[in-house]
C-alpha cells in the first residue's frame, strides 16, 4: 500500500509553492491514467502527491491572433470536442480520438502525455510536428521551452522537478497547410501504438514542397522531427521516384537512432511505406 500526503489546491501559486517545498519526492497527478497504474504496481513511491485537476488556470483552450494555448489538464476528449482545435489543428483532433477508449480519453491529459514522455505516446509526436512549446511554471516564474528540448530521454522530462507544465502553445499554421495523423496498432481501440505518422505539409501553386514536417511516433525512445527527410523533399516536386527514395531513407534514419533490433526487419520497411502512403494521400488531397 502506498503512503503519501495528498494535496489538491485550487490556485496555481499554492500548487507551485507545494511543489517547490516538496520537489524531491513529489509526483504530480492529473488524469492519473499513467500514474495510478505505476502507483498500483509499486514502480514509484512518492511521499507527496499533488493533484492539479482542480486548478482552472491549468485548463482551457484559448487563442490569440497568432497562437493557441491549450491548458495542460485538457483531456483528449476536450481536445477532440474543441471546435477551435478542429479548425486550427485537425491533426490534434484526429490524434485525440485515436487514444485509448472513451474512459481514458475522458481522463488522460495532454500535459500528462508530454510529461510522461512514453516512447509510444500519441500526443507527443503530433505536438512536435506542430513545433509546440511547453509553458512551465514554478515559484521562480514562468518560461516557455520548445517541446523538442523538453524531453531528456524516454519517460523523463528535461525540466526542473519544481516546475509544472501548465500549457502547450502552438503557432497557427499558414493557410494552405495540410496535416495528417496516422496510427498503426493491433486494433482500433485500447491499443498501444505500434507506429504513428505525423505530417505537416505546405506546397506552392506549382506543387513544390515549401514546408514539410515529419515526426514518426513509437519507433524511437524519444520522438523527434526527421529533419533529414524533411530536407530531402523540401523545395522539390514530390515525384514517385523522390517519394520512393524518401521512404527508403525514413527506414534508414530510424535504424541510425535505434540500431538493429528484433523488430527492425518489420519496422524499417513499414515505417517508410506508411510515410509514403500518408504523404501521397496528403499530396493528392490537394
Amino acid at each position: 500500500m502506498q503512503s503519501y500526503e495528498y494535496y489538491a489546491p485550487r490556485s496555481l501559486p499554492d500548487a507551485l509553492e507545494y511543489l517547490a517545498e516538496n520537489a524531491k519526492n513529489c509526483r504530480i497527478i492529473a488524469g492519473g491514467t499513467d500514474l495510478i497504474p505505476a502507483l498500483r504496481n509499486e514502480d514509484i513511491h512518492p511521499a507527496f502527491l499533488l493533484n492539479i485537476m482542480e486548478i482552472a488556470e491549468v485548463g482551457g483552450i484559448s487563442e490569440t491572433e497568432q497562437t493557441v494555448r491549450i491548458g495542460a489538464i485538457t483531456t483528449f476528449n476536450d481536445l477532440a470536442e474543441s471546435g477551435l482545435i478542429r479548425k486550427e489543428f485537425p491533426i490534434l483532433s484526429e490524434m485525440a480520438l485515436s487514444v485509448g477508449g472513451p474512459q481514458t480519453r475522458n481522463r488522460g491529459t495532454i500535459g500528462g502525455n508530454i510529461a510522461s514522455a512514453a516512447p509510444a505516446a500519441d500526443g507527443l509526436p503530433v505536438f512536435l510536428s506542430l513545433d509546440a512549446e511547453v509553458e512551465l511554471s514554478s515559484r521562480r516564474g514562468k518560461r516557455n521551452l520548445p517541446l523538442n528540448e523538453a524531453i531528456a530521454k524516454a519517460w523523463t522530462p528535461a525540466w526542473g522537478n519544481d516546475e509544472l507544465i501548465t500549457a502547450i502553445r502552438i503557432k497557427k499554421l499558414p493557410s494552405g497547410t495540410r496535416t495528417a495523423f496516422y496510427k498503426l496498432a493491433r486494433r482500433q481501440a485500447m491499443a498501444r501504438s505500434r507506429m504513428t505518422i505525423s505530417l505537416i505539409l505546405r506546397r506552392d501553386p506549382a506543387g513544390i514542397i515549401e514546408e514539410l514536417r515529419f515526426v514518426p511516433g513509437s519507433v524511437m525512445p524519444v520522438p523527434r522531427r526527421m529533419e533529414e527527410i524533411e530536407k530531402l523533399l523540401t523545395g522539390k516536386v514530390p515525384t514517385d521516384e523522390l517519394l520512393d527514395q524518401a521512404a527508403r531513407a525514413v527506414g534508414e534514419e530510424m535504424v541510425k537512432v535505434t540500431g538493429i533490433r528484433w523488430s527492425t526487419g518489420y519496422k524499417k520497411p513499414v515505417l517508410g511505406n506508411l510515410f509514403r502512403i500518408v504523404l501521397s494521400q496528403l499530396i493528392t488531397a490537394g
Partner: protein
Amino acid sequence: MAKDQDKTILKMTVNGEPVEVAVNPAWTLLRVIREELGLTGTKEGCGIGDCGACTVLLEGKTVNSCLVLALQAEGKEVRTVEGLGTEENLDPLQESFIEYGAVQCGFCTPGMLISARALLDKNPHPTTEEIKVAISGNLCRCTGYVKIIQAIEIVAQEG
C-alpha cells in the same frame, strides 16, 4: 496497512445521495465504491484501465474508476450502475439487455450499461458506429458484442 489517522474525509454525491466517507489517500474511487459504500455492481477487472468493467460516470462522463483516486472525486457527482434504475423500474437499457440476451457471464454488463447510458444521454439516436465507439473501452470476454450492440440500438430506436 494504513492506520485510521491517515484517513481523509471524502465528500461526494453518489447516485444522487451525498456521502461522506473516511478514505486512505491511496485508495481508488473503485475501492471506495465497492468496499466502503458496498455498491458492488461496479466490477474490478484488470485494475489498470484496460477493460472498462469499473466504468462509472464522474460528472456525467465515463471514467475507469480504477484509474481515479478516491480523493479526486471530492465534491463531484458519481453515478454507478445502481443509480441507473431500481429493481421495480429498470433503465430501458437494462430491460433491453435482458430481453435481447446481451448478458452472458455479466461481468462487463455494469460497465457496458454505464457507457451506453452516457452515449444515449448525449446522443439519443446514435448510429451503430457511434455505439461501437462508445463501448470500445469495455471488453466482453464472452464476446457477446453483437447482442450488446443490438440491445443498445433497440433503445436508441425507441427512445
